[in-house]
């Protein structure tokens, strides 16, 4: 039996969660105070994911704040950054506009308006 301790990051409560593993099987999840916490803990063990936020170069020389519109595999964060850094945004853009699609299962979208 192996134990994994983590802090749930679903909400700002930051519950300390302990997952007990029996081989590949999850034996127990403790410490969470909601169902989403259990789901998070399971995901953290099996396939951890993160939303990436950064900035992208604009064609006018400025930068634009962006994010992935859903979490991507944690192991792909730096690869995602490379794609973000290689792209130049055409203006104007509005919040939510897709700037890069199909990035590790998500889209990179604008998080601010810019003209």
């Amino acid at each position, binding site marked *: 039996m192996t134990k994994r301790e983590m802090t749930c990051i679903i909400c700002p409560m930051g519950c300390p969660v302990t997952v007990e593993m029996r081989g590949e099987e999850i034996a127990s999840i403790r410490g969470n105070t909601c169902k989403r916490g259990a789901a998070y803990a399971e995901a953290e063990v099996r396939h951890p994911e993160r939303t990436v936020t950064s*900035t*992208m*170069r604009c064609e006018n020389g400025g*930068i634009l704040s962006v994010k992935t519109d859903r979490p991507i595999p944690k192991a792909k964060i730096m690869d995602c950054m490379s794609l973000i*850094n290689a792209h130049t945004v055409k203006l104007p853009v509005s919040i939510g506009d897709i700037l890069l699609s199909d990035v590790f299962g998500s889209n990179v979208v604008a998080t601010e308006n810019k003209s």
Partner: protein
Amino acid sequence: MYDVAIIGAGVAGGLLARTLAAYDIKICILEKESDVAMGSTRANSGIAHAGYDAEEGSLKAKLNVRGSRLMEQVTKELGVPYRRTGSLVIGFGDEDRETIEKLCARGLRNGVRGLQVIDGEEARRLEPGLSDSVTCALYAPTAGIVCPYELAIAAVGNAMDNGAELMLDFEVNHIEKKEGHYEIFSDACGENCCENLQKPRKVCARYVVNAAGIYADEIARLAGDDSIQIHPRRGEYLLLDRECGNLVSRTIFRTPSKKGKGILITPTVDGNLLLGPTSVDGEDKEDKATTEEGLAQIMARAQENVKNLPLRKVITSFTGLRSAGNTGDFIITSPKEGFINVAGIESPGLTAAPAIAEYVAEMLAGQGLALKRKEDYQPFRKPVYAFRNASVEEKNEMIRRDKAYGRVVCRCETVTEGEIVAAIRQNPPARDLDGIKRRTRAQMGRCQGGFCMPYLAEILAREWGVPYEEITKSGEGSEISVCRTKG
């Protein structure tokens, strides 16, 4: 060919340049740093001393008292804040009282006006914040406070407005005596741009004044004079928030004793409270680091003198290097025809500086420099308008003339973009963030530039026409960013 080359753009060199700029001669100021007022002038107590400290008959005594009398007019013409606040040397017990009596007598012989020995109660009436253990004090009403770097910046600026030339990043490495003039060489590349400059850079001048502060001994040696030794005397300071500026209204000195002159507590012209300096003889002329011990010492000593010091209100600490000479007096000498040392300008050097300028101008005249008054000499320097001190009418007038005065950039000190731009366009121009700070006070308040620094860098980049990533804190090598994040 220049008539006079002044090495060093501190307060002594700056005021000398300004004095000489009144005459029909060609002047240049050679400064090894990337801005003026970067040596001893940058970090000292900012006191215009009354003149009781120096030994009777010394140059220090004579020039201090004279400088103290000139200070009011000089600062008025240059638009530099100066306040005749008075000072107190406080004593604890009989031994101190004896010393204070001696200081008073010496001061009177030096020609200081208005000196008085008062008892502890009277001292506390003047300064209610003083420690209850104070038993006596020397009251000197003619002492004052002045901002040393603002004085030097304004002096150099006014000299430039009247035709003097300032060469920055000009570290003097070599001096040659020729027939009737000197050749001065610098191996350093200049003004952030090496390609177009011939190396070594060379300046020819008929007269040379060595006002190189802590490096004055090395400059003297380049001219063949081995008699001077200067060592850096480190002095650490703590600056407290403006909230504490009213704790004392005069400069408070401790009675000098075998242990030294002690820690002073003084309001500054900007309304802050300054504590310090420590006094440690060092070797390294570039070591301006503060130390844990030094800062702890200031706090401990200052608390002996003034009650309820709010030491949590410290907003910054810094170290100054005083140019301590080997004679105990100012070293103003001419070892060679046409070469004058202005060395060992330690306390009361700031106060004496206007008088030193007069004195050296006379020496130069004595060596044959023709001092013919310029007809269009302008003694008044147009100050950078301080928005925060202006009346509502004046503020509106400023904004009407230039909208940039309606944009407050530094919120802690209420400094507008108009003032920042003026400081960049005026002589001597601000080229980096510290230069802006010393000229306008932007970044000098509570947040220490946390909010406005990125904007100031933008204004600097725009005004100088350089990329943002080339903007520095204080000259080349102190860039505030390393690259663009997105190429």
